[in-house]
């Protein structure tokens, strides 16, 4: 699933590690989400949505 996580992170000048700390996940998890290797679970998707203060649909795009 495509997402804008990397762009949103870059706009706030956060590193992957800093974003990982805020989401309470590992840096590898953040990288896996950004590169599309891993789709976050609903709870994590909602945490990401709350962190960036925007709807999930504006962050993640269903390729289907």
């Amino acid at each position, binding site marked *: 699933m495509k997402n804008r996580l990397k762009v949103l992170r870059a706009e706030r000048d956060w*590193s992957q*590690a800093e974003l990982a700390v805020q989401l309470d*996940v*590992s840096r*590898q*998890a953040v990288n896996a*989400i950004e590169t599309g290797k891993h789709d976050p679970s609903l709870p994590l998707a909602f945490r990401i949505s709350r962190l960036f203060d925007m709807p999930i649909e504006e962050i993640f795009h269903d390729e289907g």
Partner: protein
Amino acid sequence: MPFEADDIPEKSGQVSTIWKTLQAALAIVLFVFCLGVMFGAGSAGFERGAITPGIVITIAIALVIAAACGWWVMRLDLFGSDANPLASSTKKSRLILWLSTAFGVVIGIIMGVNGVLSGSPYGLFSNDAVPAGIAIALIASWVIFIPLIAIAWHRTIDEHEALANGAGAIAGIYAYLVITPVWWMGERAGLFPPQQPMIVFSLVIVVFSIVWLHKRA
């Protein structure tokens, strides 16, 4: 600066992870071999009642190679740089990993020392008899420690780590599904030596570790 050096490269990350994992596996095997050499050389000196220069040199070389293997694994940075901030869940999961490693090292040392004292210098890597007391203590440790560590581990890891762990576990199961009957049938036909459970265990762990480390990167 939007993209810092700690960001994992997207294009070459997967290939480098596999290569790094294989290097780590090789380094660990070489490290364990060096431990065996040190125990063996020490045992030889113990039996002869004298530490010869050859034994000292052997132990020293093995120690240097073992230290180099440890440095090699550290340099591979399989678990990410500690210079970056870590989420609390990541800190806890790494602590549990280190505790598990320490547990294994302690068991290895106990088995190795017991082997040397009982005249079986390679007892750590054999099926030689061990005193009942040591066996009971180690069995109790495994039965109690492993489940506790596993429960703590699975309650701490994030979803990405859980998926990687699950993938490794499935790969390990399939490895066991192939290795065990193949070896069993080969042994029955006289093609293979008698099956060794700890060799099967080691192979399954290696397969699990490779897939787990590759998936979590």
